[in-house]
């Protein structure tokens, strides 16, 4: 057949103004999603401290429960679905338990009475006002 050569301009003519809007907003969404999911914001491992010393460093990849002894008793830290939380703790006010799931790097739950803490860290440690 006598098909004309496919030219870029010819092809782009099929994209109407609303289509450009779709493409631009779609690209922005993809970039934003990529930045959110790939920025290393998601934590890789949890650092568990007891009495000021690092008790264990565990990967978030495996679901597990860890018993951490402290002065008041045993705190239980649960790792599930790339998140971590303090499942139970002997502290009187239960602040760290009620804090719930930690997911982003840099989030931390402290059980001061029992001197237990769990902190999530990503692939690279970011600076903040405490760690400069």
């Amino acid at each position, binding site marked *: 057949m006598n098909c004309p050569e496919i030219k870029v301009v010819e092809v782009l003519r*099929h994209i109407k103004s609303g289509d450009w809007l779709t493409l631009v907003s779609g690209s922005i969404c993809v970039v934003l*999603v990529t930045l959110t999911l*790939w920025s290393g914001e998601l934590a890789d491992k949890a650092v568990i401290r007891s009495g000021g010393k690092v008790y264990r460093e565990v990967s978030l990849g495996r679901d597990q429960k860890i018993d951490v002894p402290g002065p008041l008793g045993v705190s239980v830290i649960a790792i599930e679905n*790339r998140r971590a939380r303090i499942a139970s703790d002997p502290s009187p006010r239960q602040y760290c338990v009620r804090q719930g799931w930690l997911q982003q790097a840099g989030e931390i739950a402290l059980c001061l009475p029992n001197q237990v803490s769990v902190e999530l860290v990503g692939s690279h440690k970011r600076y903040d006002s405490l760690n400069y």
Partner: protein
Amino acid sequence: MQDTGSRVQESDAGVQGMQETVNKNPESRIPNPESRILLHTTAEDHHIARMAAVALGLTLLEGAIPSPLPGVKPGLANIVTLIVLARYGWRTAAWVSLLRVFAGSLLFGNFLTPGFFLGLSGALLSLLVLALAQHLPTRWFGPVSHSVYAAFAHIAGQMAVVYLWLIPHAGIAYLIPIFATAALVFGTVNGLIAARFMDNANNGICSRGGAEKIK
């Protein structure tokens, strides 16, 4: 779904019926004429079956293209869905798309496997989004928009099934950017192919054979 199943039978019977009209003496082939089941099919049924066959051919072609990551596919069969949507409306497009999913899974031997449900969920969500997207003003929005929206809906449907059923783990979130980028790129390309094809078919400049095939 059951509806679609009956349609598959119907179109098969349609093909059979066509063959029998060609055959001068059907009784010679079938020992007991009362036992045969003949479903009366309309021209539209045959048309849908033909379109689904074109879509199946494209799926087959696509299977030969190596993919860097399982699940990242161009989705060439969606070009047919887009053209059918633009020309014959959403109902016909839904028939063609779902027939392609069911008949394709039977053809490639993955009926009722996880891969089949992935394709089905993607197709269903795409059709849902296309039902909304077709009401966009045609002056500004063409097949490219439809294609991109459908492609995003397709990966959304697949990721939902993967997360809710196959791999209920937040780790699959790492794959979303890859799939989203693929959806944007292939959605745009498919939309452009569909738009260009319809343009050519309307003008009748070239691809006359293709136009006949699609009609």
